């Protein structure tokens, strides 16, 4: 029973003898194997750690177990929230939107506005035109967004709804009462059964950039567009802007959700910050466009390079080398020297790397996440002399595996470094049991891997639900690399203390100074 001066929640309550008794009693009604045959459970648990299990596990062709990817519309919602006063609008069932909102909200600890047009069975039969007409009108009336960015769920895609025709029809029927003829309503088809959330990012970004700029081609301006990609580190967006600003150049960050998902307390405004709609309309006239995430902007950058003929290209400013390349690209595009400020920042980062290297050198890591994140993070591990033993990308697009392999091949330990494209985290579990590593780098889904295999988890990635505020930091630029260095080194040191803290047994290595 609770004691009023020391009320405990479930964490300690259920450890008490009276509750342990309840749980023990319950077993007699449970299942044939759990209650009766714990030996069988142990046997199977041991077997799941074996090479035999690993071979069967990695040979799976149909069932996905514990994925490390999400579906297209999630990425589309992120894009929309990076534009000024823009409401993400998902054409489909509202259940999907409840999921997108919860997912982002649990990660950012911030509200995530997004509407749907609540399609149900009749829409499945007759199409969702009626829903679109009413939904756009209601959304405009109630929330008064400056722009509505429409994406789709798999339901709308399977029945084949035509977004462009629907939006035109909705505007016509409304007759300008809520939806003026020039009200920006860009759209993208984002089927969940193609690619992953980064594909949806690409499709929506392409939709907004191509549709808002229609007919706006004019004089080219000395200005750089920056497309961040599916970036979940708010601090990264700010680091990138700081670097670009150091060059004194005019720029537009396309899809900047750094204010939207980092609102100060005091009052609630549904929309904050974001790329100005006027800037987005004019981005076609910039002289260059740099995408910071190659695999999240394939279609968008194809348009920018082939049709818009912008200079720029890809640059992934995660890690030292990636940031160097980004800085040099900016120097080249702006025709200026690398600013002194950045030179000093770089020097400080390298200084820190040289201070901490003994703790990362030779350590084996397992890491998973989105393809572009992995390119940057693995590069940084290699820069520190670490060994990325298992690099796993569930949503690896074409070309990624070869690029990652080539990176790993630059390491002296290359023969023991593995790339796992298209594999899930249940596969990772087998890898960790059969070819163990010292540390894992990944998102909250690594938690069960940590428990099962005992491998310490360094939280870097998306989503992170069970650690606070990490998303506020940067992992991009020299300051971002310093964060990576700090998090990883200190986890190594935490673990070193953990391993050596045994009193009178292992604490001869429990050093005060390291």
């Amino acid at each position, binding site marked *: 029973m*609770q004691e009023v001066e020391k009320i405990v929640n479930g964490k300690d309550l259920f450890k008490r003898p009276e509750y342990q008794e309840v749980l023990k009693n319950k077993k007699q009604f*449970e299942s044939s194997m759990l209650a009766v045959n714990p030996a069988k459970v142990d046997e199977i648990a041991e077997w799941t750690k074996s090479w035999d299990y690993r071979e069967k596990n990695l040979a799976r062709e*149909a069932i996905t177990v514990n994925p490390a*990817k999400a579906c297209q519309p999630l990425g589309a919602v992120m894009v929309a929230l990076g534009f000024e006063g823009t409401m993400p609008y998902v054409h489909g069932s*509202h259940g999907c939107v409840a999921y997108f909102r919860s997912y982002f909200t649990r990660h950012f600890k911030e509200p995530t506005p997004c509407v749907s047009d609540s399609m149900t069975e009749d829409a499945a039969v007759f199409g969702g035109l009626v829903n679109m007409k009413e939904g756009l009108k209601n959304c405009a009336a109630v929330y008064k967004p400056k722009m509505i960015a429409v994406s789709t769920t798999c339901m709308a895609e399977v029945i084949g709804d035509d977004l462009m025709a629907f939006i035109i029809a909705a505007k016509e029927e409304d007759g300008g009462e809520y939806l003026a003829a020039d009200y920006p309503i860009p759209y993208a088809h984002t089927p969940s059964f193609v690619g992953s959330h980064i594909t949806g990012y690409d499709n929506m970004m392409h939709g907004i950039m191509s549709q808002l700029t229609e007919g706006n081609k004019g004089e080219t301006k000395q200005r750089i567009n920056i497309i961040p990609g599916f970036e979940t580190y708010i601090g990264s967006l700010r680091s990138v802007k700081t670097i670009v600003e150091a060059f004194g150049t005019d720029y537009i960050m396309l899809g900047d959700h750094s204010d939207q998902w980092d609102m100060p307390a005091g009052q609630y405004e549904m929309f904050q910050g974001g790329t100005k709609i006027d800037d987005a309309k004019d981005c076609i006239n910039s002289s260059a466009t740099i995408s910071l995430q190659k695999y999240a902007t394939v279609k968008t950058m194809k348009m920018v390079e082939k049709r818009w003929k912008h200079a720029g290209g890809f640059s992934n400013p995660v890690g030292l080398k990636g940031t160097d390349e980004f800085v040099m690209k900016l120097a080249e595009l702006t025709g200026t020297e690398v600013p002194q400020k950045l030179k000093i920042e770089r020097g400080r980062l390298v200084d820190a790397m040289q201070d901490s290297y003994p703790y990362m050198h030779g350590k084996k890591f397992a890491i998973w996440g989105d393809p572009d994140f992995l390119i940057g993070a693995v590069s940084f591990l290699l820069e520190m002399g670490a060994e990325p033993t298992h690099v796993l990308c569930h949503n690896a697009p074409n070309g990624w595996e070869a690029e990652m392999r080539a990176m790993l091949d630059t390491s002296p330990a290359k023969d023991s470094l593995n790339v796992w494209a298209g594999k899930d985290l249940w596969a990772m579990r087998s890898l960790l049991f059969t070819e163990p590593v010292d540390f894992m780098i990944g998102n909250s889904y690594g938690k069960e891997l940590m428990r099962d295999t005992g491998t310490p988890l360094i939280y870097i990635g998306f989503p992170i639900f069970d650690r606070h505020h990490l998303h506020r930091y940067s992992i991009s630029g020299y300051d971002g690399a310093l964060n990576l260095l700090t998090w990883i080194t200190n986890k190594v040191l935490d673990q070193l203390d953990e391993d050596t803290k045994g009193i009178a047994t292992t604490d001869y290595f429990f050093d005060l100074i390291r």
Partner: protein
Amino acid sequence: MGPETLEAKQKAAIEEILKAYPEKAAKNREKHLGVGSPNDENQKTCGDVRSNKKTVPGVMSQRGCAYAGSKGVVWGPVKDMIHISHGPIGCGQYSRAGRRNYYIGVTGVDTFVTMNFSSDFQENNIVFGGDKKLGKCIDEIEELFPLNNGITVQSECPIGLIGDDIGAVSRVKAKEIDKVIVPVNCEGFRGVSQSLGHHIANDTVRDFIFDGKVNIDTSDVTATDYDVAIIGDYNIGGDAWSSRILLEEMGLRVVAQWSGDATLKEMALTPKVKLNLLHCYRSMNYISRHMEKEYGIPWIEYNFFGPSQTIKSLRKIAAFFDESVQAKCEEVIAKYQPMIDAVIAKYKPRLEGKTVMLFVGGLRPRHVIGAYEDLGMEVIGTGYEFAHDDDYKRTKEEIFRSTVIYDDVNEYELEAFVKKLQPDLVASGIKEKYVFQKMGLPYRQMHSWDYSGPYHGYDGFAIFASDMDLAINSPVWAHSKAPWEKEG
């Protein structure tokens, strides 16, 4: 503030809120908003609100879908079965381990609740159908997770649209592996909310688990006169455990939990119990009614939130049994009373008179009202995401004076109601949490217990009380205004 002025304020708020909508939407939403009171003339609902209707498009409803109701709520917590999210990758990922359905077991070996099994549909599965892939998924599960006691197939939207026959695949495969495989057609577009998903899931329990259809030996459990089942408790934060302990203390034998920490065997055992105890009426009244009709098992609703309701419920349950149970019931009540008195003595002075606005799902919009009242707090507005008339009818019995009732409230309306009625605490879900915290309002998630709990039973109430105190009396809310800002 007297009740009359509050009611006037509530009515004015509704009127004002409706002004923002285009005509058609306003007409629709008007029917879902009302001011309820214990003296309502309309006995069918509360505050005359209409419910369980299609959501107005484009308004940021908080509702989920049928898949969420089946996979997320009813089936998902059954721990020794593997639940396949059948279709594209997203649904399973977004709903993974979000509800805090606690269970005991070796995850990945004999229990699977917090994992995510997905058939991860690709374009070719849409074009050519996914039945073959589903069959293969089942084979692979059987090979890699041999201790699973059965499988459910939780359909996502495309399944019903492309004409797959998951029933046929399940039948064939169930024979092959000699385990139950339950096809659930809970596609997200079916119905208007989670609610239909609950119903569909209940129906599949009826059709696939009962009447010896499950190949699981239950002969080692001999029925007694004191057997009961807990129905509609998802063991969020351990709620079913802190309920179970009380029932056992009064001499009952809890044979099954539906479905938090549940096993297939417990479900199969349920048709032999003497009484079904229904906590979440909305999501599991269907199966309770079925068991009443088919096996003659009576069911009663109970409420284990807050001591007043808990005591009432314990006595109501005991009344179904003999005097020994009734005597023990009184002993249980007497045993916990000093602790509860101490909790109330400690927290009531800190919470008395504070007002609360609720918006939750199945049972809590009415069930927790009593718990707040036990602490001297007042619920001034409440509503459900996916309720039906019978839920609102039951709500009317819980409120003690005029209360704003909002059905399927959307982000705009809830924000407007809160601004106008200025409660001291808002209690709802994760999607709304930070909206109100930005405004400097104390907030508690009432789906997940905000990562605390359990809240059921006596021990749970102590946690509930201390959590409400934590939220309302935390110093952090006072920091919103900077010292250089003027009062106003």
